[in-house]
């Protein structure tokens, strides 16, 4: 059983949702970023999405745009991000998903990327602008014996036919985009989202995780009452931006706060 499946099974048996955290690698610099990630993993993240910065993050709001810019300026690359995974692996066993736009992966070469990601101990990839139907561009390079998931997304705009296809191919978990637009703050229509998730469960038994605009304790509680996973990104990244030196501590504290709200 893969690390991801085990994690979801474990949190399910604990009657709670998984806390999934996104953090941009290399923001504001590699060393500070490592300390933040290390603290976040120790504080109780269930799954880490390690963001690889890209120069043109068209699916991201201002917070992650600025984080990406700082990270690139500090010299972060996909190769260095994978080294960071390897370093985290020496202390932490939680699943790590490489969260990137497709171009850095294409530039490295999908085969090299998969080989290095597996060697570093990563559990999967979420390539924002590589849609479900093009998954093979990366996944054809994954050896059959390896557990490496391609995380697919479903958005509020995804039509019903497409939704069924994506759910039928679910691998690891499905990232449910909670609202229109880009990452970061914005209001979520919870009743609609709850109904959508219920409908999706008819088509899949895979874990469903909710993200985009989940930022407050209330959001976390609401999301965890309807989903198997809650994804937080910009809320953590804001803490990094506000005070990089204290970010490890502050992100860890916020994770602990969110963990309290995950109980069903």
């Amino acid at each position, binding site marked *: 059983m893969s690390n991801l499946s085990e994690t979801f099974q474990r949190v399910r048996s604990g009657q709670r949702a998984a806390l999934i955290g996104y953090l941009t690698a290399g923001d504001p610099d590699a060393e500070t970023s490592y300390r933040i990630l290390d603290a976040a993993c120790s504080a109780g993240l269930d799954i880490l999405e390690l963001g690889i910065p*890209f*120069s*043109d*993050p*068209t*699916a*991201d*709001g201002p917070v992650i*745009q600025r984080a990406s810019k700082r990270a*690139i300026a500090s010299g972060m*690359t*996909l*190769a260095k991000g994978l080294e960071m995974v390897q370093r985290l692996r020496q202390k932490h066993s939680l699943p790590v998903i490489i969260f990137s*736009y*497709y*171009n*850095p*992966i*294409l*530039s*490295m070469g999908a085969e090299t990327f998969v080989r290095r990601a597996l060697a570093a101990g990563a559990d999967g990839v979420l390539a*924002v*602008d*590589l*849609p*479900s*139907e*093009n998954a093979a561009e990366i996944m054809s390079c994954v050896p059959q014996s390896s557990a490496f998931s391609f995380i*697919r*997304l*479903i*958005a*509020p*705009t*995804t*039509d019903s036919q*497409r939704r069924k296809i994506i759910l039928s191919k679910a691998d690891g978990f499905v990232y449910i*985009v909670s609202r*229109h*637009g*880009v990452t970061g703050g914005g209001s979520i229509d919870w009743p609609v989202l709850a109904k959508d998730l219920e409908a999706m469960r008819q088509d899949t038994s895979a874990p469903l995780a909710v993200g985009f605009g989940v930022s407050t304790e209330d959001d976390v509680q609401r999301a965890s009452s309807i989903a198997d996973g809650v994804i937080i990104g910009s809320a953590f990244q804001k803490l990094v931006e506000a005070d990089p030196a204290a970010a490890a501590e502050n992100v860890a504290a916020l994770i602990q706060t969110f963990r309290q709200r995950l109980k069903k």
Partner: protein
Amino acid sequence: MTLLPDNNGFFGEFGGTYVGETLMSPLNEVKTAAEQALQDPSFWQDYRNLLKDYTGRPSPVYFAERLSEFAGAGIYLKREDLNHTGSHKINNTIGQALLAKRMGKTCLIAETGAGQHGVAAATVAALFGLRCKVFMGKEDIRRQQPNVVRMKLLGAKVESVDSGTGTLKDAMNEALRYWSSVTADTFYVVGTVAGPHPYPYIVREFQKIIGEEARQQILEQTGQLPDSVVAAVGGGSNAMGIFYAFLNDTHVELIGVEAAGKGLATGEHAASLNGGRLGVLHGTKSMLLQDEHGQIREAYSISAGLDYPGIGPEHAYLHQTKRARYETVTDDEAVSAFQMLCRYEGILPALESSHALAQTIKEAADRSADKEKTFLVCLSGRGDKDIQHICDTLNL
């Protein structure tokens, strides 16, 4: 030649739909609506009527006699500069606005660099009574004030984009972000043969009229096809527009001209085919200016319309299959061709089109052929928008 793109929007290995999930279904809707519209004779009739009565098509093909004599070749200019709004961009925005209306959308958004596409989008929004928002880099707003004023007069809202270097690439990033929050009532009018499928396809379909007219016009005037067809390429819409009708005329050479900026060796250029490699940006897989880690590099050209780090996927395909040849022209060469057309023909060309002229003059000077060659050049736009820039460059 097989009909491209394929059903998934690929021209060989280039093209496709590389966007976040939020935009996948909206793009499919555009694709379905476009496929229906492009098979509907009444849609094309509306398009042609507007191009004739509103835009002033067909644009003439003009034999540039004095320039030809100077250059030592027969040079024919396809006068897209004479269109309403001053460039070829209006052909595409009329087509896409008709499509938007057919889909029941009430708002248009567009990205713009030099402002030509923004003005063309704002123009059709006014024409059809649609709301319009144009995303434009902060730096381009500063450089292209007259076009900003034109868009405002036409009733469009100009959104200043502050991220990145505040140029075309950043404007397109922001347009995509904004679109993902408003797809229900908003149509994204992409300005060139790039972006996710179906845009490279539909923009070509709305621009191919350039080549269809020009092919017939030059046959009428000279009794034969030209030796070469030359056009500048940024994203590549005027070039695809004029090339497309000649793709099967395999003895007609197609020459695309990229902006070499300050020279390919300086790194300050916009030559995605001659200086880039395979990548994915703004929804399409094509040739891109990027660093070794896959971060997109800033493009540079004196011409804001060519100042883009990518290129339409169909050009990448024509380049790879060698059906078209892609050359480069520097800022200085373009400016000198600009001046030459002013003095020899009394025409102020856009700086974009000046790149195509410069390459034509270079090729004409090559006397290795035993007879004078004929060139059909796409004069994609007029140069009024560039006057201030040229004045500063030449200290006039």
